[in-house]
């Protein structure tokens, strides 16, 4: 039993390694095909990455970006999950908020970047707000659907035990929504990093977006790709974190 599970784990690691290898091979192949300085291969990019990390230039930018994304996603979750649950559970709330959600959800929120900067200043708050705003809707809608989909029999049976509304929210509706919250979070962290890039190209001299733009203007393709890799790694780390959190908070999902 133990040996076979260890072997299965080894096989999974091997598959992941193959995945990474395929990615790098494709990249190298493309680089050879294009054969110009604008598309360095993974080896050159890796060297540039190592150099920019060693010289201490990259890490502060990475730290800024990580902070902004985490703050934005965390505030979005804190606001979107209760709002989604309230919309799913109470038709009145749904009717009140639906027009707002339906109208604002499809609008590209980054269009408000100048407005947000004017209102909230050029500091982190404006960036965090904008990223959070985009992510908020991506979490709100699935959470609401999750709360709507709770089977009536589940609620009836718990209520028959003497549960008050608060108990039903805590023991039934919230856990029923959690898997959807995590799925939406996985999508949201990708979006968050994309929006992060955009907000950091504007009125700042910190963050990976700025770092990329700076490398762009210097035509330093090595540095450019170092920044891109850092952004990819940031996204992957966030994704991994969501997976860990889901395993911790939704153990029944993986039986």
């Amino acid at each position, binding site marked *: 039993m133990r040996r076979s599970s260890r072997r299965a784990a080894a096989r999974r690691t091997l598959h992941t390694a193959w995945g990474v290898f395929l990615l790098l091979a494709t990249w190298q192949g493309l680089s050879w095909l294009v054969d110009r300085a604008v598309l360095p291969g993974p080896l050159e990019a890796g060297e540039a990455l190592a150099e920019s990390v060693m010289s201490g230039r990259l890490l502060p930018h990475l730290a800024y970006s990580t902070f902004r994304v985490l703050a934005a996603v965390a505030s979005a979750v804190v606001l979107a999950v209760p709002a989604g649950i309230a919309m799913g559970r109470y038709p009145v709330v749904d009717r009140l908020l639906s027009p707002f959600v339906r109208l604002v959800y499809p609008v590209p929120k980054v269009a408000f970047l100048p407005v947000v900067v004017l209102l909230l200043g050029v500091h982190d708050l404006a960036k965090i707000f904008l990223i959070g705003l985009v992510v908020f809707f991506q979490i709100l809608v699935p959470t609401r659907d999750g709360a709507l989909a709770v*089977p009536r*029999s*589940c609620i*009836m*049976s*718990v*209520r*028959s*035990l*003497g*549960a*008050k509304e608060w*108990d039903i929210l805590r*023991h*039934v509706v919230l*856990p*029923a929504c*959690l898997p959807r919250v995590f799925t939406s979070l996985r999508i949201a962290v990708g979006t968050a990093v994309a929006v992060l890039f955009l907000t950091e190209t504007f009125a700042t001299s910190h963050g990976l977006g700025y770092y990329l733009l700076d490398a762009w203007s210097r035509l330093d393709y090595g540095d450019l790709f170092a920044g891109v890799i850092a952004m990819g790694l940031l996204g992957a780390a966030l994704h991994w974190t969501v997976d860990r959190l889901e395993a911790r908070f*939704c*153990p*029944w999902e993986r*039986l």
Partner: protein
Amino acid sequence: MSLPQAAEPSARPGQEAPTPAPIIAVSGVSYTYRQPNATVPALAGVSFVLPKGSSCAVIGPSGCGKTTLLYILAGLLTPESGSVLIAGRPPAAGRRTSLILQDYGLLPWKTVWDNVRLGLEVRREPRERQEQKVREVLDFLGLAGLERHYPAQLSGGQRQRVAIARSLATDPDLLLMDEPLSSLDALTREELQDTIADVLGRGGLSFVLVTHSIEEAVYLGRRILVMSGPPGRIVEAIDNSRAGQRSYRETREFHAQCDHVRGLLARIVRPERPVTETTGP
């Protein structure tokens, strides 16, 4: 939360036992589901009485309002007209009444232990009492060792046991069951029928069992309510005092009673065709 009251002493010599208030007194209850595009009458003038410590099986064709009746008894729906008294008081969810649904109503995200503890948790019982009570019912229902399992890791029979355990943990006076065994295989089903019979035999607890199975109704219901509908009404209330005794299933009386109920049901489902009642082998 009140602790379980001391058992009433059984009839003392030379003194007549006082007649206890019935656990259920339902009189002239009607209920209609009002949806935006339809009104569906579910119950029309249902009346019955169930003495404390007794059991009642409700049987009838699909859609005859059996589940609605249970919800009303549980205090989850309020009847349009008529009166319902549970132990002399209007029904209220969570007040010494417990409901077990067809699909068990277990929460997939809670372990067996936490599912069984839920009723005590929402009643804010002290922690030690919760633990002690959960341990007790899990042992009684043969679920020890499965505490950390999730419902998805259990068989249908085990899940139903957990649902029963969750209900018993709150020390109810009245257990309401909606086709609790309908999705189980024949052997597990009989095993759980025996478990329910044992619960009845322990005394103190009364229950209402909604079922589609004639044998189950006759084996477990000291009173059998045969319903027709929609809208649901009680066609006949049969007294069946030997219900709940394990030996009853093997007797001729049991089979005769089953045939009687079968005849009644056949007349409800196919009123146009006269049914000749078979009387025993």
